[in-house]
């Protein structure tokens, strides 16, 4: 059964057999939806309704439905955009970078994290389109052939770079995620009893047979995609940051932005992964797969990136003073002491001070504290973008144009609406897709056929389900590469 290393904490606890893994994860897909899921989906759908209403008002009447003005031309829209893109960062980081670094613990969380990435990028992509005055002409940003001769997109514009960065990122993430899903879909297909389910999962699994050659290709593709997406982790938020960094607005025009934004993105992405994982693991009883060790590891990454962000905040202030540019100086004085000081204070508290609590081991391993912390970081990172965008714009060069921004009900509706969209997608995913990569988790089980059960009950005193009798023989789609056991 499960072999437990004497020196290492197991990555999956509870003495799971290969069949247990299949059983535990497929159970969620095959069982009738539970009441908590239904309740959660209703709430999400309500906010999705709010989203559609807000979109209707925005597209039908115009951007005037928002709280923007002639001075602050971007506010919640781009704040939300950057926030969602940031959240979308953890998925790729986990699936690609951690894969390349052979961090096996990633297997239990990468599926959900990647799904989160895709849904977050979908939410993010809503804003650049919706914030346009004429969204029906959004396709003009693509360098399409046309009959107007030299009429072409402006390759100097960071917004155009955004289009390429986001669309590439989305495509690669989606392909990466889907490739990973194929073997698991095949597993579900093989187990499916209903005709619709059988048919749907057949279609989704692209006729996966589980041959050794297929597995070999699967691994190769994963590795290639990991290689392709690793630079994307850095490039996407670098380019998003250039929307600001290449402008001349004091508070935006900052060379530190690319690394600062990337760190912030990973920071917020991990916070969101934690939030979702902590809920998912409880709702779907996945405590054995997403262990405290996972949580502690993610906490550490959050703390590191949070600290990088904190250093960036301080550096900005130093540079403002050191540059001796009066507009730059005022931008930062205004940030901290101006009418939006509360947003700045919220950002500093949430992003710089609270993550430092992770130094304390008890916090790092505490589920409730981690949950609270992850929410705080999500809030803090939203404020960071708000602070950068709004407090820089609202008082820039000419005092005559200084203005305040306050969101309209539609602004708020759109934001809550994208949360609704996100959670709707996530809940549907969690119900109909395997939330944990079964195939990959099986590779990290310390499983041997020959040695028989070596599960140490002492080590698993808290394991929830009792170990079930072993069923010998690999499940249809589980690759068991005995030589690769470490």
């Amino acid at each position, binding site marked *: 059964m499960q072999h437990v290393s004497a020196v290492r904490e197991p990555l999956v606890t509870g003495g799971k057999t290969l069949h247990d893994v299949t059983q535990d994860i497929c159970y969620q897909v095959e069982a009738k939806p539970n009441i908590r899921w239904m309740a959660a989906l209703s709430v999400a759908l309500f906010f999705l309704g709010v989203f559609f209403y807000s979109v209707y008002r925005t597209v039908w009447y115009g951007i005037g439905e928002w709280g923007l003005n002639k001075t602050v031309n971007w506010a919640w829209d781009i704040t939300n955009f950057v926030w969602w893109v940031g959240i979308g960062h953890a998925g790729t980081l986990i699936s690609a970078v951690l894969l390349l670094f052979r961090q096996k613990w990633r297997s239990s969380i990468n599926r959900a994290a990647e799904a989160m990435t895709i849904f977050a990028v979908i939410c993010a992509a809503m804003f650049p389109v919706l914030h346009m*005055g004429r969204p029906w002409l959004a396709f003009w940003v693509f360098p399409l052939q046309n009959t107007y001769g030299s009429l072409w997109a*402006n390759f100097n514009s960071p*917004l155009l770079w955004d289009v390429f960065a986001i669309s590439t990122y989305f495509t690669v993430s989606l392909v990466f995620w889907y490739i990973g899903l194929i073997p698991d879909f095949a597993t579900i297909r093989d187990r499916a009893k209903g005709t619709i389910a059988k048919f749907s999962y057949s279609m989704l699994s692209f006729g996966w047979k589980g041959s050794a050659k297929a597995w070999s290709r699967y691994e190769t593709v994963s590795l290639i995609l990991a290689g392709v997406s690793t630079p994307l982790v850095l490039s996407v938020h670098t380019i998003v940051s250039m929307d600001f960094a290449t402008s001349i607005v004091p508070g935006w025009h900052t060379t530190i932005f690319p690394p600062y934004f990337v760190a912030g993105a990973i920071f917020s992405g991990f916070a969101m992964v934690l939030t979702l994982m902590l809920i998912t693991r409880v709702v779907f009883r996945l405590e054995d797969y997403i262990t405290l060790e996972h949580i502690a590891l993610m906490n550490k990454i959050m703390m590191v990136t949070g600290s990088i962000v904190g250093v960036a905040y301080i550096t900005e202030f130093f540079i403002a003073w050191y540059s001796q540019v009066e507009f730059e100086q005022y931008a930062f004085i205004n940030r901290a002491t101006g009418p939006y000081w509360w947003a700045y204070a919220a950002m500093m508290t949430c992003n710089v001070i609270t993550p430092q609590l992770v130094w304390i081991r008890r916090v790092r391993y505490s589920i409730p504290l981690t949950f609270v912390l992850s929410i705080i970081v999500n809030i803090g990172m939203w404020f960071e973008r708000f602070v950068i965008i709004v407090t820089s714009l609202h008082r820039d060069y000419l005092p005559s144009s200084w203005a305040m921004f306050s969101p309209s009900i539609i602004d708020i509706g759109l934001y809550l609406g994208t949360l609704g969209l996100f959670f709707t997608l996530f809940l549907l995913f969690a119900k109909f897709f395997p939330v944990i990569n079964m195939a990959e988790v099986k590779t990290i089980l310390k499983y041997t056929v020959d040695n028989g059960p070596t599960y140490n009950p002492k080590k698993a005193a808290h394991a929830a389900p009792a170990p079930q009798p072993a069923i010998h023989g690999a499940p249809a789609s589980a690759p068991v590469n005995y030589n690769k056991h470490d």
Partner: protein
Amino acid sequence: MKYWKGIEELENAPEFMQSAFAEFMPVKESYESKDATSAPRRDFLKLMGFGVAAATLASCETPVRKAIPYLNKPEEIDPSISNFYASTYFTGADYNAVLVKTREGRPIKLEGNPESPITNGGLSARAQAAVLSLYDGGRLQNFAIKAGNGHEKVEQAALDQAVRTKLAATTGRIAIVSPTIISPTTKKAIAEFAARYPNTTHVMYDSQSVTGLLQANNGIVPGYNFSRANIIVSLGADFLGTWISPVEYSRQYAMTRKISRDKRSMSRHYQFETAMSLTGSNADIRVPVKPSEMGAVAVALYNAVTGAGGASAYKNDKLTQAAKDLTANRGASLVVSGSNDPAVQALVAAINQALGNLGTTVDLTAPSNVRQGDDARMAALVNDMNNGSVGAVIFYNANPVYNHPLGQKVKSGIAKVPLTISLNDRLDETGMLCQYAAPDSHWLESWNDYEPKRGFLSLAQPVITPLFSTRQAQESLLRWAGNNTNYYKYLRASWRAITPSDSAWDKVVHDGVATGTALAAAPAMTAAALSPAAAVAQIARASKPAANAVELALYEKVGLGAAGCESNNPFLQELPDPVSKATWGNYVAVPRKMAIDNKWEQGDVIKVTANGYTIELPVLIQPGQTNGTVSIALGYGRTLAGKAGDKVGANAAPLAMATANGLQFSNVVTLEKTDATSPIAQTQTHHTIMDRKPVVQENTLVQYIKNPKEVTEYEKVATPDGLEKPNKVSLWQDYQYNNHHWGMAVDLNSCIGCGSCVIGCQTENNTAVVGKQEVINRREMHWMRIDRYYSSDHHKDEFETVGKVGTYAAMEDPSDNPQVIFQPMMCQQCNHAPCETVCPVLATTHSSEGLNQMTYNRCIGTRYCANNCPYKVRRFNWFSYYSNEKFETVNGHMFTDLGRMVLNPDVTVRARGVMEKCSFCVQRIQLGKLEAKKQKRRPMDGEIVSACAQSCPTEAIVFGDMRDPNSRISQLLRREDGERAFHALESINVQPNVTYLTKIRNAESEFFAKENA
């Protein structure tokens, strides 16, 4: 071991071997039918697709476009070619000689008439906006007769018949009530009416009366010439904004403020006033005084200037200095007063006389005619109406129920007059009460003549047939008097003496202006002028309000005027007050101290009570407002003005004081806070410059004379060759301009901030009006704005050297009596435009002539350009201003066929979701270039002028081709380079094509140096 894929492989059949290594098995091309008669599947699909598409297209209805060709094309009208006709604007006592631009027979824009010796091509904001009033759907569109609570339509002939019968039967006095009439022929028509009905009297009153001034000068308003004054002292006269003839005075005033290498001197301007007026904000030295102190100020100044040793109740060092400056500039100084107190005006007249200014700056031989109203006569008429001795009253463009302080008594009086007739253009507050309404045509539909100043005449000619069934008021009066002549013939006949020949007449019609006089002498005033001694005694006798009483000063808005006759003009409602930058409504301007003492915040509604009349208005904290006083603008609170003008603010006219000396536009009021709040729509909510010298620069005259080369503080950047101006270093390749390079220069020393350019731009460029709420949301669409900054008591060095925390917050508060600077701000047409690089779709690009162009069709509305614009001059179409019902009240002219006639067909009405901004009037540039090209020459300097430069009364804006070395702008920039010329925000190196010239203040002398230290 080998598994066969099939029996073919085992047998190694030749057919199999052919395809064994191909990726795909050959497919039999079975679908290609050889049968020519049956349609192949793909062709069928193609045909079906075409069929569906064609059917869909055919079922769409083609929109019907109304374009009706001329049956007989009028000779002088060519489609898309503008015709200009000279005419005259005189509404609400504001005189402007104008050129009317018409397209396809409809007036679309007014421009200043450069032939006029009075307005010299300048135009007030009010006149700029007046073209919109022509298409005002709120005008009464036919003759009407009272029926029940309303009026019903009646034929002109029927109304004439009824009125003639009733007039003939009238036994009592017949009164014609009008504001000042400066038309000699109109007066002749009235005289003819009076001859037919001998008991007729003509009563003129002005809603911003200068009866006191008339009385002190034997019934005339002296002609003033500010251009010859070195020292100007104004006791509350807002001569740049609203007083008598502001366009004329602004031009004269600006002539004394133009300063350059060739003339390093300028006038010094003292202003003693209660509210912060446009004039006061331009003054070198401004002293806040209470209205009740104005008499004492006049006495003190009189004593100081003449050396009459009387005791002065008012003491102020600045007044002493003013008197010293005045006496040092005998014959080259000018004292004016906006007071309506005959005693104050008598003293002012005596001061000017004592200074020897008669004949230099004060011209009694060419008096101004634009104010002739006599308060006493009007008050007497109101009494007579109430005591029943008036048999008939005709209101000729007069709305005393609304704009006269005794409006309520006028209202009750109308009820007692047997015959009431309104010639007003709409059923306004007065017209609604009258039995007969015979609406006057708009002046753009009418013939008329004017004599704004003795010896200066001008004409108005119709530029469009009357839009509605209206008739010129003069013609109505003549018909009722039994003379059925058409008014044009009547006018031509009365001009026989001046222009006997038709060619001379044609020239006057063409030019719009003429010299000569036609007006009868002014009627004698009801009271004679006071001697200086008597005036001093009267001022001493006048009862003074208690020291802690709150005094109210009523003033006139630069945009709207006091009479309320332009209230339904949304352009003017949305024109920001030059000083407070408030739009859409009046407010109680209070000094900061009063607000703090009473714990009022801006926008708190307070009750203002005087004369037993109460109005509720929000508070606006106004720097410069005299302590212990409040100010309220007249001209608001209309109830029957029309869609845009109704219920905007509150009517403050009844708060004025009717005294034996005429109307006094000040009073003692009681203030009481209410729980309500009402936000004030300001286009600028941050008021101080925050010590940002790169934005706008100013200096003192002393410094400027000392070292003109160092007057402008340039930011320098470090380069290998030492410190250089930022534009010497660039990462970019500069554009090459081979043909033209358009540029603009704005002289901040001549700009008085009146806002005429703002409206000029708005009418030229079809800019939408957005209404109060959207102004509060900071979304006004003006392409051009005038930034106004107050000085602050706090400065950046308190933070930088002393490190005082909170300095920046303190810098946001203006001084209590601040210095003011105006900076017109429009697209700077940067050569290194930050907006151009960030647009993802190239909707904003650089032209080969230096213009930063905006292509509306290409814009997708990301607003990135607006964020990246350091001048914040880009305007986004947040809504569909021409079709969203939210904007129908304020932007109504874009909703109806009638209103749309005012739109400039050369400028697109922008769709929702696109960015717009100042284009340097590219349509005018193109037109000028095409005209020149047709004549095979280069455009001449001055031929192509932007709308703002055209309308500027002070010629503060110079527009032209910087590639032409002889153009005015090139010469100016050469002269001022290194002296007063600077670019706003030079350090960010966006290289604007707009250059500003530093403002110079003439406040620094030995005396003031001491005080400032």
